């Protein structure tokens, strides 16, 4: 089972002390130039007391199960000596993170995943935050330097010499999708270069309206400040206490209240709603000044009920958005009531904090640049009764009271809103008032006053300008609270962004081009000398990988061709992979089995993800009587090589007189076998030496005064070759089906031969059959019977159009030939 990112995160956190907060982790990291390409490293960004460090952890399992599976390889303090940048990584999904610390340099291959951007953002934040920290703040790291298990074990990594790093070359062509995420990741890292901080005023308000419908203007709350804010986040609680609202989460009050909110916004600016989210009575509206609207993006919201069955009489709603390049998150909550229920409130908070999940990244509250937490948190004042509280208030001893404020206490103990900041409270408790008055609860219950309504924040660059309550809005038992912030928003400088973006793309292009597979081939043209029938020749080409990545090569088909090379050529291997610096010998073999003047082919050697190279193969062929047509051969009186070019051309075009009834070569072979081979046992079966066949072929083609060289068996094999490679089979392809159909009746077969076969082929066919009949007279000596001979010659005289396709001894063909072996042929010679 794969552990989730969150699981691993928890395991990593367990490796550290509680106060050493793991801010972000990155899985699937490997060391560039490391011995293994296992992505078994985990990067962890850890913060302790505002000092950050980057830890490189090695996991002993592919997925750590417990913190003891993790060992610390490297610790790099994030202080002004720290810098980092990235380069496009070598592989499909990789980017190389280069970290420099003084003279040391670390490089990690990072597999880009969905959490990469968060990690990058955290890293940048830490780096930014480090500029004003003192490098000596790193004392908390000392204990870890001792535990580092790498070979450079050193009490201080800072003094390590420069690490020389060679990029490891496990590379594939990059996909464009991957390029996109890599670009995003790198842009995030470079964000400080193309953004600048601008202050935006953010008004955050919270009010528990006690189920009342809106009746009074909210101006005195929402437009309290002189200048119109840039952003509003207005949170209400208990806008509807009805059962309907509770069960159906539907209420007309939403629209009513929202109208009052909009009407209450600062009159000196126009605002536009960005998002409105509601859970039962908890409602949160975020508005921006019109002029900023076009810089708002990735808006999303979520809600989380924590009350009874999580249905939402208590709980929280959150809205997230990006304003320019800063991510903002507003959370409005209404936590559990009653003085003694502070633990429940802590738990409610945790539920909201961890379980709110936005549809857009970052998905969790905690991962935003700025978080504003507001609402009726419902924390009370402990240990004091109503009259004691009231007395202290009258004496203006607010600080005494604030010390026993549950929120302050729980926060101090790290039980709630850890790392959140709240400004000094200078306003009186905002709960509980008699309606339409400034008088604290005079009912029987006489609840002690409390600061239930609060606004806190977390994140960089937030400055609280004011924090106040609004006593003149009296319709609820709570008073509204608001806070004005001046917050730093990072704004993209378009020209700088363009430059960074273009530079990055250029770098990536350059990198991508450098990492294309590159090979050289030692010859672009392969020429074979005189290529002769069935006399294979070999040439070798050497493909050398001159690039930096493995090259996968393959000879590919040209358009409209069925194979990657002509049938007279064999390429071995026709595909493969070559590592950088290595070579591969590729053998080209020609084997000529047809009648060609010249050999010519262009091979396309394709590199996967890269270029193609062309290799031209050519050669001259030697003519042979084998592979010619019968009708050409009967026009040739002398060995084929004795002909002049013109004579040859005219014979091959079936021009000129016919000299013979059967080709001279056929006659020579048959005559030789008739005289020397009839009694040879297994005449057609033995395999003659290749040279012997070549000698006989040359004897036929060049002529000689000597006898045919070679044994009867070699001559017999040449005879079979001759018949097998004639340009057209003795029984032409288009006649073969009829022959097979006629095979069980000799008369039909005879008619076919007489009527359909031309004179030259018919004569040759009958000539061969008569020879075979003669052969069968010596069965006792040569061991052949008619069936065997018919089967052998059926496949040759009626050969298949596709060579080498293991001839299935066709019964029909055998039977057809058999007829001509068993019947008197003299009558067949004369047409009726």
């Amino acid at each position, binding site marked *: 089972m794969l552990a989730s990112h969150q699981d691993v995160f928890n395991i990593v956190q367990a490796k550290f002390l509680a106060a050493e907060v793991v801010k972000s982790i990155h899985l699937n990291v490997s060391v560039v130039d490391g011995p293994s390409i296992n992505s078994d490293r985990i990067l962890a960004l850890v913060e302790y007391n505002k000092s950050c460090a980057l830890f490189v952890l090695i996991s002993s399992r592919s997925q750590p199960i417990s913190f003891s599976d993790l060992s610390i390889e490297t610790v790099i303090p994030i202080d002004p000596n720290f810098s980092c940048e990235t380069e496009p990584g070598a592989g499909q999904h990789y980017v190389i993170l280069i970290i420099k610390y003084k003279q040391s340099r670390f490089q990690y291959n990072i597999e880009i995943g969905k959490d990469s951007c968060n990690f990058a953002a955290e890293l940048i934040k830490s780096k930014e935050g480090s500029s004003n920290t003192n490098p000596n703040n790193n004392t908390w790291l000392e204990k870890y330097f001792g535990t580092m298990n790498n070979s450079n074990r050193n009490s201080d990594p800072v003094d390590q010499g420069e690490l020389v790093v060679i990029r490891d070359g496990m590379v594939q062509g990059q996909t*464009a*999708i991957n*390029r*996109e995420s890599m*670009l995003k990741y790198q*842009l995030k890292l470079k964000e400080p270069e193309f953004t600048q901080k601008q202050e935006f005023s953010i008004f955050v308000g919270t009010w528990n309206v006690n189920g009342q419908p809106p009746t009074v203007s909210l101006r005195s709350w929402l437009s309290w400040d002189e200048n119109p804010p840039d952003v509003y986040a207005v949170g209400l609680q208990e806008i509807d206490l009805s059962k309907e609202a509770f069960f159906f*989460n*539907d209420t007309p009050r*939403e*629209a009513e209240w929202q109208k009052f909110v909009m009407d209450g916004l600062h009159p000196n600016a126009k605002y*536009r*709603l*960005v*998002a*409105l*989210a*509601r*859970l039962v009575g908890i409602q949160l509206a*975020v508005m921006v000044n019109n002029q900023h*609207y*076009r*810089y*708002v*993006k*990735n*808006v999303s*919201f*979520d*809600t989380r009920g924590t009350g009874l069955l999580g249905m*939402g009489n208590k709980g929280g*709603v959150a809205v997230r*958005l990006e304003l320019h*390049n800063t991510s903002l998150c507003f959370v409005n909550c209404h936590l559990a009531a009653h003085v003694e229920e502070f633990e429940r409130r802590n738990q409610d908070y945790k539920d909201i904090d961890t379980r709110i999940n936005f*549809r857009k990244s970052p998905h969790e509250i905690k991962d935003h640049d700025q978080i504003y937490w507001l609402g009726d948190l419902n924390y009370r004042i402990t240990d004091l009764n109503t009259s004691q509280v009231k007395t202290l208030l009258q004496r203006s001893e607010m600080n005494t009271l604030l010390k026993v404020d549950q929120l302050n206490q729980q926060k101090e103990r790290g039980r709630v809103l850890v790392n959140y900041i709240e400004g000094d409270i200078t306003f009186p408790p905002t709960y509980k008032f008699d309606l339409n008055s400034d008088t604290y609860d005079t009912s029987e219950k006489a609840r002690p006053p409390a600061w239930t309504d609060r606004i806190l924040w977390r994140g960089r660059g937030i400055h609280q300008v004011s924090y106040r309550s609004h006593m003149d809005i009296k319709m609820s038992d709570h008073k509204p609270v608001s806070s004005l912030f001046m917050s730093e928003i990072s704004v*993209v400088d*378009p020209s700088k*962004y*363009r430059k960074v*973006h*273009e530079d990055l*793309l*250029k770098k*990536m*292009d*350059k990198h*991508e*081009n450098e990492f*294309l597979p590159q090979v050289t081939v030692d010859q*672009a043209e392969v020429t074979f000398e005189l290529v002769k029938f069935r006399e294979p020749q070999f040439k070798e080409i050497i493909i050398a990988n001159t690039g930096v990545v493995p090259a996968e090569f393959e000879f590919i088909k*040209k*358009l409209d061709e069925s194979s990657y090379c002509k049938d007279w050529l064999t390429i071995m291997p026709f595909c493969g992979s070559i590592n950088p610096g290595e070579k591969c010998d590729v053998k080209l073999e020609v084997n000529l089995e047809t009648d060609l003047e010249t050999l010519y082919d*262009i091979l*396309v*050697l394709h590199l996967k993800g*890269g*270029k*193609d*190279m*062309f290799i*031209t193969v050519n050669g001259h062929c030697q003519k042979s009587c084998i592979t010619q047509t019968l009708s050409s051969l009967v026009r040739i009186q002398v060995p084929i090589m004795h002909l002049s070019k013109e004579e040859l051309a005219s014979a091959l075009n079936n021009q000129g007189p016919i000299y013979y009834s059967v080709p001279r070569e056929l006659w020579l072979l048959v005559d030789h076998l008739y005289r020397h081979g009839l009694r040879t046992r297994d005449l057609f079966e033995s395999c003659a030496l290749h040279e012997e066949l070549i000698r006989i072929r040359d004897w036929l083609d060049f002529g000689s005064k000597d006898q045919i060289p070679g044994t009867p068996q070699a001559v017999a094999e040449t005879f079979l070759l001759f018949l097998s490679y004639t340009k057209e089979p003795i029984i032409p392809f288009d006649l073969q089906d009829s022959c097979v159909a006629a095979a069980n009746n000799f008369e039909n077969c005879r008619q076919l031969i007489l009527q359909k076969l031309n004179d030259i082929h018919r004569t040759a066919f009958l000539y061969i059959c008569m020879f075979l009949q003669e052969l069968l007279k010596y069965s006792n000596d040569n061991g052949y019977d008619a069936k065997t001979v018919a089967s052998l010659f059926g496949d040759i005289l009626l050969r298949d159009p596709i060579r080498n396709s293991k001839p299935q001894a066709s019964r029909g063909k055998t039977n057809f030939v058999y007829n001509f072996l068993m019947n008197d042929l003299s009558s067949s010679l004369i047409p009726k």
Partner: protein
Amino acid sequence: MANRSGAAQRPNGQTQGKICQFKLVLLGESAVGKSSLVLRFVKGQFHEYQESTIGAAFLTQTICLDDTTVKFEIWDTAGQERYHSLAPMYYRGAQAAIVVYDITNQDTFGRAKTWVKELQRQASPNIVIALAGNKQDLANKRMVEYEEAQTYADENGLLFMETSAKTAMNVNDIFLAIAKKLPKNEQNAGQTGNNAQGRRLTEGDTGPKTAGNCCK
């Protein structure tokens, strides 16, 4: 509540340009400067002695336009006549072609016209074709008049520029002009199947939005 979940399709333009990928092929007589143009465009270099291409070289280069980023997959083909029959492998499925001739050699202009004709017949119908009269730095040996080529280009709907790989004149410009002319969205991106057909490659903001689990 028309706008409760806020602005979805705001063109932010700054950080989220889309990347379109296009296949571009260079065609033309051998030695007119195809490889040199690519080398100039991709690496900013020029070699007096440029090795002749035997095959089809492959490089990539990205151009930033205002709102989009165009990534070219460039196939630089061999110009020799003997390899002519292989050219369709490279221009088939290409969204753009640069047909190059050498302004000092009239024959290469004739050859360029043949290439244009072949592309118009055989290549994808939406292909953007640019005609490049290269070696403009050798204008004193000019054999092809600018006006003649311009007229021809106009008649055939081609982009046209005289370029010099040597001085870099108009090299980026011709690629830029092509990038601008190429259609940047799926509908216009041609129909020749699966290879890099002006693919839009941004994930980002396009996912369907479902209502939140609160306000209904």
